């Protein structure tokens, strides 16, 4: 009998963590116990997950159709950004027809330099499809298209959590509820038992802690605002929308029966009333809920047998990046290294270092939104048009490129790897790719058709 794995937290994060780990470890004899604690802060009713979320559903064996139906989900090929008069698309998939095509993005930049009317989106299947309301699931025999059309989902948080809870129950996970949980430690500093409010003391092999920092003093913390009042159905938009505001960014997530809005402000000088007023002006919506939280910090999520994954993932959670992606990363990475003893300091150290790398890449991506030229990544792009190599898949290559060129960073230097080609040759090559992309997108169904077909498959 293996040592029990005990999960603590609430809502979607708890259910997701439990599902991933239980799916992998229950067959190997690990007892899994999930302790549901009350939520300490309001949570957004909807979320956007990247391609990792789709991979997760496949890994769990959760049919996509079921998730679409239960969680009112829609597809997302990326995000459409709007800032003043300029707009651009940040795709999950890659630009061009082949992810490995050498210097393709450099060729695009070269074209943009010469032709102010051209847009990078013309050379991206996902961007073009999104602009036309098209969406298709790539056939199994076209892995190239699957990559180019890499997609995520917008879905209702509570409904998806319920779906996962049902899944976890079917796997045999034991669910307990408690108002509080108290950790008891061994002499070596490991969690030995978890004490619930009814007096139950649960022995612990590993404690997978999915909690985030509780809400605290409103004046000095991050304010998140959500609105689920918008009944506009945007099925012709298989993407999130991101709008620049005076304080940051406002995100709109289209679901099957309406849209959800989500924003965040970290400026302590900004009055909440001012915030609400501007949101109302921008969206025409008045019913904004808010929650305040401390900005958590966690760079060492693996400490002995205490895995502080919720806290770590929450450090990145914001309207522009869903912490659930980070949580999923933390869990999968931990499962990759699963040790059979709780004390393995070198493994935990390397794991934590890797997490810091992931965290720093996401933070870099978020920071780019505010101050593109204050980051090394932005500076390198503005000088050379290069996206720096990353150590993790936290942010996809297409996202980096899409964001930085969309933000208006124009490289000073052109690629020397293309210097032996004339501008005409580059232009012609790009136009051929553009035509092929246009043909592919023309043949694609609309998101509405794809969604209907998926839902019909479920009803049959």
């Amino acid at each position: 009998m293996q040592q029990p794995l005990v999960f603590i937290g609430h809502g979607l994060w708890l259910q997701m963590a439990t599902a991933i780990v239980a799916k992998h470890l229950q067959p190997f004899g690990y007892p899994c116990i999930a302790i549901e604690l009350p939520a300490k802060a309001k949570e957004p009713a909807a979320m956007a997950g990247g391609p990792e979320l789709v991979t997760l559903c496949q890994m769990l064996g959760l049919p996509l159709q079921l998730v679409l139906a239960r969680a009112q989900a829609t597809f997302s090929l990326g995000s459409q950004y709007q800032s003043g008069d300029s707009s651009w698309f940040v795709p999950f998939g890659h630009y061009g027809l082949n992810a490995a095509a050498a210097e393709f993005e450099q060729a695009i930049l070269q074209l943009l330099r010469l032709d102010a009317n051209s847009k990078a989106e013309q050379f991206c299947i996902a961007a073009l499809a999104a602009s036309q309301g098209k969406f298709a699931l790539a056939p199994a025999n076209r892995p190239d298209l699957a990559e180019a059309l890499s997609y995520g989902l917008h879905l209702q948080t509570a409904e998806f959590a319920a779906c996962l809870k049902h899944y976890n129950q079917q796997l045999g996970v034991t669910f307990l509820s408690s108002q509080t949980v108290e950790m008891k430690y061994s002499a070596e500093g490991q969690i030995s038992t978890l004490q619930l409010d009814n007096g139950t003391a649960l022995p612990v092999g590993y404690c997978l802690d999915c909690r985030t920092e509780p809400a605290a003093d409103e004046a000095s913390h991050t304010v998140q605002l959500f609105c689920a009042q918008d009944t506009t159905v945007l099925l012709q938009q298989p993407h999130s929308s991101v709008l620049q505001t005076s304080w940051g960014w406002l995100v709109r997530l289209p679901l099957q029966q309406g849209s959800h809005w989500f924003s965040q402000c970290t400026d302590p000088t900004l009055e909440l009333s001012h915030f609400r007023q501007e949101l109302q002006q921008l969206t025409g919506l008045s019913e904004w809920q808010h929650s305040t939280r401390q900005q958590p910090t966690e760079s060492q999520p693996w400490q002995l047998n205490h895995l502080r994954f919720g806290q770590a993932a929450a450090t990145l959670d914001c309207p522009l990046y869903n912490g659930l992606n980070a949580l999923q990363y933390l869990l999968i990475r931990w499962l990759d290294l699963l040790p059979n003893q709780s004390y393995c300091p070198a493994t935990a150290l390397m794991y934590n270092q890797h997490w810091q790398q992931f965290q720093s890449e996401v933070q870099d991506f978020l920071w780019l939104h505010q101050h593109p030229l204050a980051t090394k990544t932005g500076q390198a792009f503005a000088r050379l048009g290069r996206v720096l190599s990353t150590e993790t898949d936290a942010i996809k290559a297409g996202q980096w490129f899409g964001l930085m060129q969309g933000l208006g960073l124009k490289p000073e230097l052109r690629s020397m790897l293309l210097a032996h080609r004339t501008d005409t040759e580059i232009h012609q090559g790009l136009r051929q790719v553009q035509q092929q992309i246009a043909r592919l997108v023309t043949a694609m169904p609309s998101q509405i058709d794809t969604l209907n077909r998926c839902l019909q498959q479920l009803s049959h």
Partner: protein
Amino acid sequence: MMEAKQRIVILGGGTAGWMTAAALSRFLPPHSYSIQLLESAQIGTVGVGEATIPHIRQFNQWIGLDESEFLKATGASYKLAIRFRGWGQANSDYYHPFGLSGEDLYGLPFHQHWLWLQQQKTTSLKDYGQYSLAVLMAQQGKFSRPAADLKDPSSSFNYAYHLDATLYAALLRQHSIAQGVEWLDGKVTAVTQHQNGDIAQLILEDGRQIAGDLFIDCSGFSALLINKTLQTGYDNWQHWLPCDKALAVPSEKAPAPPSYTSSKAMAAGWQWRIPLQHRTGNGLVYCSSYLTDSAAEQALMTGLEEQALAPARALQFVTGRRKQSWVNNCIAIGLSSGFLEPLESTSLYLVQIAIESLLQYFPSHPVGDIERELFNQKMQLEYLRVRDLLILHYKLNSRPEPFWQYCAQMAIPDSLAQRLEMFKETGHALEYRQGLFQPASWLALYLGQGLQPKQLDTRLGALDPNQLESWFSRYQYQLQQVVNAMPEHHQVLQRTELAGAAVAPAFSLYGHRG
């Protein structure tokens, strides 16, 4: 008004110099750039890099070099692995293949299953290398090109070459000159600098002055520009990699050249054997604190398998790397930027990566800080990650000789210590995105040199060992059948005209599946 051409001067005509010239002349338009390569007939070249890794195929393809032409011109043979004998223990014998071993099973890495079956004392379990197609091919003298289709078992390996570095440099020279590179013969006696420290001109012995905007220092160990002129410091890694001398000697060709490089651990270093089509390259890398030069020469010459063709040539080196490879308007590529012993055949790879990075971050005139910084970071990472794997070869040993005892006891860099400790704790190897060697390489070494983890993945305990054993037997049998159907390596070498039809090279060291 016509804009002046940017003048690029490459100093040094060894493999690094001509690889750089070939790549720059392939991509930089002649109407905007002039490329001159200066070498001196009075100064010999070291001729490093007779054994390569698969990335060289990409380089050749990149600069437009046909594989058939390359094989004929350089006397190259194919290479699938490095065979390590005597490393770890005096009687050890393992391969570090350009390929994967086994396949993931039940969501767990193959090596975890292998280690677990070993713990269960499974009688039919074979050596770890026997589950690698590249190892079986290398051992049995077979060769066939890898496949790109991931369902094909042959997509699990890659190949490189053994080549004659002097002939390779000559081929690249011919290629570069045809592409417009100006070849100059002359010896540098002085270097002038601008006020900001940038190099302005090279003054030659005969009074000629070679002015440039960008200087590439491929002057080898002398590091004439990057160090003697620009005074860039050097990180000395001899306390981790204590060998400081080498002897090299060519011998007659082997009747059937093996498709692997041999590396045999000796009392105070190691001996290499690199089989080419027309001769065999041999050498001994050793630590002069533990072995005299004459004893080293004796050990090398008595260890030759074929008749020597020339006297042994001596080399002296300090293992380490230049603190910065790119300073002002000078970029060091090759031995001028650092030296790592050829234990894992990485010399030409590091040259190649430097050239690729230079082209990716190619500067305008004047050079900007960003491209310099990015280039230096990239090269530092590549050197450090190769370095750690080399140190591991020395660290993991239980040999009795004083040299090896020192290596077993020595402190190692934190980056390596953490990886090593992690493997001991859990049997897992963490991959990284950047850098050359992935878990397949680390595992070949850990297991080949006898390191056993204290614990394995806890999931293994739920498996049925008999079922797993059957799977292992079937898998190994299937690999053997694939190898049986392949032609002999020496036969393939005789038909080099067919080489050009090879599938596009995979970027990974381990083939398309890697």
